[in-house]
């Protein structure tokens, strides 16, 4: 009996290894395929149309991440301190942009902040236009990426030992000094990780951007949009520009990992 049980366990172990191996292969192979299929001899030329979108992506995503930090960190802080139904509701709302199909997010953004949108129409009267502008591209990626930052930062704030804040009060530190000298340094890793996640998500955003901000070269044409456009001119160009995106993704992942590792 014992031997049969052991044999069954072995079988389960083998099955797990096969499953795990397949998962790793499945996940790793597409990137390897990109490298294999890349038009190495003409790579520089094929990449050329990707440089401007890459630059735009970095700028748009960075601005969005900074805005997410400015408004998202206070939100994360309040969420981490508060309890009750209304807080649960806000936390649920934060998940909406994460679970919504990005294309739907783009339609929703158009309804809200587009030229005929409820807020967009008002904004246009004071000269602020989001539709088909770089500002619009920022709005699109901010919508999908900020919740990631808020959730990661909130988790970090929750882990903060409350005694540190009490100690800060007994040293005469006001709220801003406590935030600067105690909270931010002690939760730095969670915030960095959240910012890394948000930035990566922003760089990868396609659906919401193309729906809300359009595909204007130099204005709203970010890296994923350039890949999509490149595909129409042939697989070589799409792969070459994709390799740029891979490089950015690897860099962003490294920064994010660094944040987690320092925890």
């Amino acid at each position, binding site marked *: 009996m014992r031997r049969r049980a052991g044999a069954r366990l072995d079988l389960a172990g083998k099955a797990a290894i096969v499953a795990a191996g397949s998962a790793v292969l499945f996940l790793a192979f597409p990137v390897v395929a990109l490298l294999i299929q890349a038009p190495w001899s003409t790579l520089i030329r094929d990449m050329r149309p990707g440089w401007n979108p890459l630059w735009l992506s970095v700028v748009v995503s960075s601005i969005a991440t900074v805005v997410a930090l400015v408004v998202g960190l206070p939100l994360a802080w309040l969420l981490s301190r508060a309890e009750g139904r209304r807080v649960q509701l806000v936390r649920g709302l934060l998940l909406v942009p994460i679970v919504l199909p990005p294309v739907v997010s783009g339609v929703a953004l158009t309804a809200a902040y587009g030229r005929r949108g409820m807020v967009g129409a008002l904004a246009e009267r004071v000269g602020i236009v989001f539709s088909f502008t770089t500002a619009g591209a920022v709005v699109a990626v901010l919508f999908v990426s900020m919740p990631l930052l808020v959730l990661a930062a909130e988790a970090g704030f929750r882990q903060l030992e409350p005694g540190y804040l*009490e100690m800060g009060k*007994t040293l*005469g530190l006001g709220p801003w000094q406590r935030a600067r000298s*105690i909270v931010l340094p002690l939760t730095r890793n969670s915030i960095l990780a959240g910012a890394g996640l948000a930035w990566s998500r922003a760089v990868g955003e396609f659906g919401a951007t193309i729906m809300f901000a359009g595909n204007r070269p130099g204005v709203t044409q970010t890296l994923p949009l350039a890949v999509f456009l490149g595909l129409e001119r042939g697989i070589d160009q799409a792969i070459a520009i994709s390799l740029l995106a891979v490089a950015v993704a690897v860099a962003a992942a490294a920064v994010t990992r660094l944040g987690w590792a320092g925890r």
Partner: protein
Amino acid sequence: MSLEVDITLEREVYSLQARLSVGQETVVIVGPNGAGKSTLLRCIAGLEPSTAGEVNLNGTPWLAHGSSLPTEMRSLGMVFQDDLLLPHRDVESNIALGAAGDPRTWIDRFDLTHLRNRYPAELSGGERQRTAIARACARHPAVMLLDEPLSAVDVERRPMLRRQIQDALAGFRIPALIVTHDPAESATLGDRIAVLENGVITQIGPAETLTSHPRSAYVAELVGLNLYQGIASEKGVRVGEAVLASSDQASGPVFVTIHPRAVSVHKRRPEGSPRNAWLGTIVSTDTTFDLVRMSIGGPVTITATVTSDGLAAVGATTGDPVWVSVKASEVRLQPR
């Protein structure tokens, strides 16, 4: 300079009702676990909302008519049970965090000069606690609150730190409250002792008063310490004509404390060879609650506390000779 406290706190599980006035002195708060000692300090600091009450410092209200001055506006220095040093700052910048004036004065006074560029993770428990105390002092507070400041420190390093705390407090001449559960600390650390039991101050006064007139069994047991002045050397500690063995390391003039509960009383010479054993005579017995305190004359006059049953087992009364023994680990030394 005086701190007036009159606080009521009602919670589901316990309540606290404390009223005390602290001048330019150190009041040690003792009491059993869960009596509300830390809560009392937290109320005074404004970290714990009280149900009702008043806290005044020199007539300035910290808490009055339900309005509470924010903790950061109260001029206080607080040392928590946990040192709460910021891990990303070195010793010097931890102390500088809320400092009024040059933090280096305090770094020197607490012997942290050679450690000033170390991070908390690189310090021992005692060094961390010293840093935390120096940080609280560096504010030049008007009130000092210390919650078990010595509990995280090695036993042999406590006397030194205790003296540093006493020196700092003496320099400030401000109201200070120190929470402790160590009877030896309560006898030597403060000017007065406040006993907190079940959220109520049952007795407050100098150690002598508490010793001579304990108002509860807890007080009787807590403060009835045998306290001697002795001279410590490698051979042991000389108390009068006798030399006692002690596990504590010390040399020179010391306070010797022996808890009455640690004194064993026997009819015959104790078995084995306890290093501290002598023949004495019962001078007097005094029954408080269900404990018998007996004074035993001999080379060292000592008070022992035994239960009534314990005394019956020994079968001795006033005037009878008895053997007295004390373990070396129960003979506690603190430099004078």
